[in-house]
């Protein structure tokens, strides 16, 4: 739950990175930070050198907001990542100025908006943040470019179900951490690079730069996908708590999809096949095209209400993702890459 309380907006991931460092430090041989702020955890394999390596990437950044200006005691703002402005009015936020300031997003009444608004949703450029502080205090505390995160506190709905902001992609950070915990009592043959990547919500920049630096033989992205919720289509969405999804599509190596399905079947870990006709919109897209190309896999955890402050996940799916990843790494043989061929 601690992961859901800290901010980590794209490009400014330090608060969440510090928490992940603490969680990973006892589980890996060394930690390092990339030029763009991604966290690399290295765990040496026990195979003969030169050993193959696998990279598992989970982005740690989150969507959020940025200050664009101050006006009459209120704050104007824009977004980082994809945010539906209809989810913003009435939302509690923290503005990270010279001090952290609590505020709330307010929707001006129609008569203070351009003509024709009526009861229509208000676009982000006309929404304001109210802190209750006088304009002079705001000018001394907050300036253009300051970050704004959602202050929604995590909710425990039942033993297994939690809701909160940034489950995209903190759910996957938790899964990768569980994977590292499971690997701790094993000695995989392969080297493992655990990567908490940056700026996924702004184009996946962190992942492919880390991929280039670490040059793994295989890469797995772990991210969230859409769980069934009111108004979602029947296809391309998955039951909450119904297991992880194993990706299939152009950005995924078909041999890896087959290997993961076999493994999940053998371990009786529930999963659904996620059909991804185009690009996946995850770290996998960039990792696949890194340097001379890397065979990629995408494992996803279904969450409801993605990119709202009340994203919802079933912890069982997080545990399943962690276990599936760990078991995959444990069973990797020195010559796995030779078996990973295109069956045309």
């Amino acid at each position, binding site marked *: 739950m601690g992961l859901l309380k800290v901010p980590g907006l794209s490009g400014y991931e330090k608060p969440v990175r510090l928490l992940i460092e603490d969680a990973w430090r006892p589980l890996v041989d060394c930690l390092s930070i990339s030029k763009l702020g991604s966290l690399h955890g290295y765990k040496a394999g026990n195979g003969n050198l030169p050993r193959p390596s696998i990279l598992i990437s989970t982005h740690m950044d989150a969507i959020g907001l940025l200050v664009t200006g101050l006006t*009459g005691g209120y704050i104007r703002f824009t977004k980082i990542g994809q945010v539906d402005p209809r*989810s913003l009015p*009435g939302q509690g936020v923290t503005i990270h100025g010279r001090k952290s300031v609590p505020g709330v997003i307010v929707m001006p009444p129609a008569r*203070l908006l*351009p003509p024709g608004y009526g009861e229509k949703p208000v676009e982000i450029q006309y929404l304001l943040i109210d802190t209750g502080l006088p304009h002079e205090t705001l000018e001394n505390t907050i300036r253009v470019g300051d970050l704004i995160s959602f202050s929604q506190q995590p*909710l425990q*709905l039942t033993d297994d179900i939690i809701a909160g902001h940034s489950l995209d992609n903190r759910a996957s950070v938790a899964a990768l951490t569980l994977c590292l915990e499971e690997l701790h009592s094993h000695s995989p043959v392969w080297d493992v690079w655990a990567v908490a990547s940056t700026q996924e919500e702004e184009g996946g920049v962190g992942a492919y730069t880390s991929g280039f630096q670490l040059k793994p033989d295989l890469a797995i992205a772990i991210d969230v996908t859409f769980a069934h*919720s009111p*108004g979602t289509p029947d296809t391309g969405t998955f039951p909450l708590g119904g297991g992880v999804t194993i990706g299939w599509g152009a950005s995924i190596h078909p041999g890896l999809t087959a290997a993961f399905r076999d493994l999940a079947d053998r371990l009786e870990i529930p999963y659904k096949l996620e059909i991804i006709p185009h690009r996946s919109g995850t770290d996998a897209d960039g990792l696949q095209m890194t340097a001379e190309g890397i065979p990629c896999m995408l494992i996803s955890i279904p969450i409801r209400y993605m990119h709202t402050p009340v994203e919802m996940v079933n912890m069982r799916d997080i545990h399943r993702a962690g276990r599936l990843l760990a078991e995959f790494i444990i069973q990797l043989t020195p010559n796995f890459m030779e078996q990973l061929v295109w069956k045309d």
Partner: protein
Amino acid sequence: MRNSAPQLNNEIIGLVESLTNASGISGGEGEVRSIVVSQIKSHVDNHHVDALGNVLALRKGEGKDALRVMLSAHMDEVGGMILDIDQDGFHYFDVIGKVDKRQLIGKSVLVGTDHLPGVIGCKPIHLTKPHEMRQPVEINDLRIDLSPEGSGKAHPGDRISFSTRFTRNGAVMLAKALDDRLGVAILIDLVKHAPENIELLAAFTVQEEIGLRGARVAAYALNPQLAIALDATNANEMPAWDDSENIYYNSKIGHGPVIYVADGATICDPRLVRHAITIAERLGIPYQLRQPGTGGTDAGAIHKSRSGIPSLTISIPIRNIHTPISITHIDDFGNTIWLVKEMLASLDRSLLTSERA
């Protein structure tokens, strides 16, 4: 202007915190009522809970013919109610009181007397078409989600409140239901420290947000000689979209208690308006006059009771009324307590026989 505000002790701020964290949707004010009764019972000569759930209390004054003054503050807040459960386990709901449907998406809520945690989500933006984003989501298309395991625990008729927790940032307080738990806190304080010259008839009312219903029967039962409603009113101060001046702000936070001349439900008794202004100016208490307009308070029901009751409303200005998070300035709260106490202490029977205007 603000340096004269009385210092408030932690006890009364703590009271605001517990009152705003409690759920009390119109018709289901029980949690607030419990706090009120436990706070006032050792300070009043008698109190009872009436047929609608109002808490009516009497604190006698000195002398036999002390002026009988009713003060009312409503315990209820806006929220919602579970209507039904759909085949996928999500709950239909409706709002209670004036809540803009555009304030609902992405909020966490508490359902029923067990405070079951739930959320109001929406379709992920990735699956939403641009034309859909230009339309508001109707309440009938929103659901309360208590999670697959939690959905069996709620029932149609369960009330829904926002789950906002009280936060303080220096002189700023952020909470849900500041309308009208601030008034409730002030009335509790008045009951504890009532001026001796009046007979205080305290009405902690129900169902204000759905039509001033509790106040109507409370005023009949208490039969006061005059009445003051203590409420919260919107401080709608934001600039217009093009940064032009907003001249219809209603009230402003940090500018003192809001004295009403008229709203949509009441033309306040001009003698009481004058009395409030006179006391404020004599003592240097900051005050402001509410811009006359729509809206109503308990005074709207009280002044029409029996053969008519001279009535006034004094409100604390709050930002973002009827939303998950309202904001108030602590000095406005303190100055309202100050003004109302001084008004009561200097109330004289002659006010009722003086010329109205």
